[in-house]
């Protein structure tokens, strides 16, 4: 499960993409072969999108292996999860199923229902035309109205009555029309019409989605297109942290007030009614060089740490952050130096906190194993009554161990992908300290599955 939260099959700091996907693939096969019911139930948990898609795909490809009475639950779980995923992911999944020649009745039914539930299929057809066409063809569907001709013979009709399809047709000839299309589609037309990038961005700005805005903001500013403005206050916390870390240090200093305010707002939104209720909290946050992540997941571990920093600040009554590098300005943090976890944990414990949260990839190297020793002795000799709860959150999947790297057996470790899940994970980790067995896990999962499906109704 930790794997399902953290791993995305991409390259990490310590292991390559091939290793990652090989390791993950094995884990999926193993779980599906031996505990198919648990495997399906994982869909009800906070697994990341990459793994949700993998699970759905594996289940659909092996429908025949499922017992008859399980199939119904599985189908509902998959349908429910797909409804929560971003559409490009789902289209990706459907196309992968098509490539793998998976075309059983259940797959077709799921595709049909999912497409039927889309709020505006004509919009999808314009934005993801190839994908929609593939799905329709694969599931033997007959789209109503003008969609059929649009997907298969787009240039035959002289005009469309559906507005967005008509706009798409006109955009081939008329520059003004393309500004009414979704950004990704309009970008292609802009290239075709040789529109200057700055002018294009300036005019397409109102059509940008929230995340497109955030992504394009810096490059647009470089081009002088000031209309592209992301409203930082509405961005999700971890995404915002990534954005901040991507800015040069000078910019961060210049925009300190704005960025800090945005991060605080996002953190407070997540903390909700828990804000200020966590007592004294000390966080040991990893900003060592390995927090750089990889070319694929640039600064992701550090972004998670930074997001956790602001979230914990919002949650705690009294909060002390300890960055590994010894810096105290969270906003200017960048991956640098070694990982002296042991020493920093010692510093943290000296504050006598009610809760110690460690966010690190678990590669303790200065010196290796000191963190484990400190935590072990703290638990066994200095604090046997557990007055201080210690939790380790790890944003990186370790391909060799099929799990996230642990710091010490005495401290619960949970994989974390978005800081948004921190509250739930910390609660869960406390629960995990009691060493539950398989029956309890099954019971817990059954409960989660029921809740998950009930939200559906």
């Amino acid at each position, binding site marked *: 499960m930790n794997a399902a939260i953290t791993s995305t099959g991409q390259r990490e*700091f*310590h292991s390559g993409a091939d290793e990652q996907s090989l390791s993950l693939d094995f884990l999926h096969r193993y779980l599906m072969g031996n505990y198919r019911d648990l495997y399906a139930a994982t869909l009800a948990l906070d697994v990341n999108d990459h793994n949700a898609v993998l699970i759905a795909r594996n289940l659909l490809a092996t429908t025949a292996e499922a017992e008859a009475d399980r199939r119904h639950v599985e189908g509902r779980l998959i349908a429910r999860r797909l409804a929560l995923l971003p559409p490009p992911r789902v289209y990706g999944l459907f196309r992968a199923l098509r490539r793998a020649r998976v075309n059983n009745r259940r797959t077709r039914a799921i595709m049909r229902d999912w497409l039927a539930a889309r709020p505006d299929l004509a919009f999808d057809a314009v934005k993801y035309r190839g994908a929609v066409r593939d799905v329709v063809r694969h599931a033997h569907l007959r789209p109503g109205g003008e969609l059929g001709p649009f997907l298969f013979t787009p240039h035959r009709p002289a005009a469309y009555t559906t507005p967005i399809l008509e706009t798409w047709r006109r955009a081939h000839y008329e520059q003004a029309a393309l500004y009414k299309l979704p950004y990704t589609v309009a970008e292609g037309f802009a290239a075709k019409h040789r529109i200057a990038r700055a002018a294009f961005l300036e005019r397409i700005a109102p059509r940008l989605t929230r995340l497109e805005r955030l992504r394009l903001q810096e490059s647009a500013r470089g081009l002088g297109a000031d209309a592209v403005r992301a409203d930082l206050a509405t961005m999700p916390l971890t995404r915002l942290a990534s954005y901040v870390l991507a800015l040069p240090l000078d910019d961060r200093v210049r925009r300190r007030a704005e960025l800090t305010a945005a991060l605080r707002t996002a953190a407070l939104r997540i903390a909700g009614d828990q804000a200020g209720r966590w007592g004294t909290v000390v966080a040991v946050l990893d900003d*060592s*060089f*390995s927090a750089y992540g990889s070319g694929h997941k640039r600064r992701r571990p550090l972004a998670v740490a930074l997001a956790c920093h602001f979230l914990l600040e919002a949650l705690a009554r009294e909060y002390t952050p300890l960055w590994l*590098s010894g810096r105290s300005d969270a906003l200017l943090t960048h991956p*640098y*130096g*070694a*990982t002296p976890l*042991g*020493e920093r944990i*010692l510093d943290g*414990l*000296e504050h006598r906190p009610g809760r110690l949260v460690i966010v690190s990839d678990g590669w303790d*190297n*200065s*010196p*290796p*194993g*000191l963190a*484990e*020793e*400190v935590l072990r*002795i*703290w638990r*066994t*000799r*200095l604090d046997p009554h557990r007055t201080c709860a210690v939790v380790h959150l790890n944003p990186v999947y370790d391909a060799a161990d099929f799990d996230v790297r642990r710091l010490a057996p005495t401290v619960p470790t949970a994989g974390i992908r978005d800081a948004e899940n921190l509250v739930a994970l910390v609660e869960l980790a406390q629960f995990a300290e009691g060493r539950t067995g398989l029956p309890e896990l099954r019971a817990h999962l059954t409960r989660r599955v029921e809740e998950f499906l009930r939200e559906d109704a």
Partner: protein
Amino acid sequence: MTDLALTGLHTRPAQAWGGVRLVPLVRREPIEDLRLDARLHDAEFGVVEVDPRTVYSSYIPHGFVASWTRDGTPAAAYGTQLRGPAERDRAPSRMPLRFHRRMARRAGRNRLRFLPLHLALEGYLALHFGGPEIAWEEWSRRAINRGLSPRVEEAYTGAAVEGLHDALRVFEIHPGQCGVLVYAADALAAAFVVPHPDDYRALHATLVHDLYGELIYHYAMLSGPVPDFRARIVDATVRSLADLRVQARRQQEEWAAFHDQVMAGGLLDADYTYQRVHEMGGYRLSRFLPPFERRRENHIGELITDGAGRLAYLKTFRLSENQVRRGHLLTRLAACGWNLADTAAALDVTEPELGLRVEAAGFGHLLRQDVLDRYRARVRHGRR
């Protein structure tokens, strides 16, 4: 003859990755008045800040050199050089270069990167380069006329050493780090020290272009992952957080002491012969040769020290067993004036045996053919 010492540097915990272990060396106070000349390393944007009051002199480690001469032929600098502040714009003295496919690697339009350690290796290769000083009758005409020329030794680049590249990639550079010791399967492969942390940061990745001996190549290829030296604290000694901190600090100190005495012992304890190459502004550039004792570590290298004996720059290369044997033989021959009978007596072997050993070491062409044949026959006869 003195010991080599890592004066001014402190050992930090090692980081292991596969069969490679890297031990960082940290300086409390960086050396500011001697800096690596980044201009040569990267001609486009190498600016070294200079405090107006400090004397600036820069040195050029051979590995990072190369600029084109006026007439357009490529040239290589002669090893490491020291230059004064006034000479900033003067190109380093250099020699024209004939291309051998593998020796030089083009790094840009008008830059050329060479394998480093040229100076030290040159020192080793030039060992008794001139051949016999007294024309004893056993030596061939060629040995008398041309000496050992040309002498060639083989080494592997870091890129060929299994796992080194990955180990350098995931290594986390410490704040203030000015050096590193590279171990393959826990055999000391090389030591590298620079004056300033910024220099180290810039040059960290070049370790993969360095030369490594045959021994290191094979060790890295065949060894499994080396274990971490994990910290261990005895429960009974701890009663409070302060105790725990004391114990943690002691772990650090114990590791540093263990490393310097045991792991790096082979490098630091040997008696070296130093040859001063250049002296300038209180800094002394020298190269050193080991005593060529067989069946133990032998490192050759080059270093810069200041007046107080502080180590500013160091780069070493570990010789393979065969190279040690050759060095040993040459040194002994030279010590006995290239007289075969005397050398044989000093080495406690018979003269024919020594002759065959010279041949086995790859210097057979130095002996006259008839003398060699006679030795061979004598040894065969003796065995029978």
